[in-house]
């Protein structure tokens, strides 16, 4: 049944649109809502990639630890990038 996933996708797009509108209206929270919407939509990229790869519905022994390793990559890359950005901004603030 595709209805729930399409409804969820539409909900995510609505959040992103609200975020963009708030950002254009120069509301500080606009950035946060935009990131929320973007985060939800990026998740759909994972979802459709998994659908295309036929991951869902396969028995766990056929998938093995592929999803766990991918989760670990998301953790390490995401955390690494965020920490890098925070360090860079803090360095800028200190040198100002």
């Amino acid at each position, binding site marked *: 049944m595709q209805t729930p996933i399409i409804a969820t996708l539409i909900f995510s797009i609505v959040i992103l649109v609200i975020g963009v509108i708030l950002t254009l209206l120069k509301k500080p929270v606009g950035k946060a809502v935009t990131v929320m919407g973007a985060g939800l939509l990026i998740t759909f990229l994972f979802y459709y990639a998994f659908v295309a790869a036929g991951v869902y519905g396969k028995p766990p022994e056929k998938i093995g630890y592929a*999803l766990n390793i991918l989760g670990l990559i998301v953790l390490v890359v995401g*955390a690494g990038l965020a920490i890098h950005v925070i360090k860079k901004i803090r360095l800028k603030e200190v040198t100002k």
Partner: protein
Amino acid sequence: MSTPPKEKGKWLVITVIVAVLALIFGIWGAYTYVTEFKWGEPETWTLSRSILMLGSGFWFVVGAILWIVGTAFLIMELAGYTFMGFKITKFKIRWDSIDIAIMALTAAVYGGALAATGGLVVIPGFTWIRPANALTPVFGVLFGLPGAIGTAIGNFIADAFAGYLGWGSIGGFVGNFILAYIPYKLVSDPSLRSPRAWAECYLSIIIASVWCSAYISWWLYIWSPGVSPVPLVGLPPIMIWGWFFPFVIINNLLVSVILSPPIIYILYPVVKNWGLLWKDRITILSRK
């Protein structure tokens, strides 16, 4: 001003009692789930029986109240209002690159950690224990609102990895926000350097676990077959209140009670030194 020893002793006793009770309930819930629960027959589990005894009408009303208040918290916080004690206060958060990076960091760490440990056998028979759940109070207490929103996004990511992404994930999104938000609001001292802060932390974990589960359960219930004219969720109502609701409480409670407070205690100096602590990043503007 430091806390008088008598006051400290009182809070220490409260902390131990709350922590031990939460731990006993968590272990008992997990043990009885493994030994009693039969899929499709929720009344086989003692905890389910106690919940179902009150009737789905009771849980519908309780869930509705928690759902409305929980959703109001999210909207209120995004609109720049928060609770300080029992008063609604206007606050300012810059939502600059650091706040956005905190959101991304918590989303990636929580989502990635949930996916990385998905299906991991921690103790044989307890495959459903998600150790990453312990991160939610940590993100709330240390990072505040950006941490709570990041947690919500992280759960959404984990749903995609687990194959659960769907209409229920929207309830999971706000439910996980609440899981981090309640500790953020209830723990007055994020350093956890006092017995009172530890007591608040344990209490907030218990409240957040129940609230999060009730929030998601109510969302699933109103969209379930037989309740909604357009069912968007496949789980029948008896399984929502009889299995999902107690299962998620135990799932969140057990790992969070054991792991979250020590993690907060250890990470606090690092987060504080980096200038990422929520208390250093928001400005209280007025009190209503």
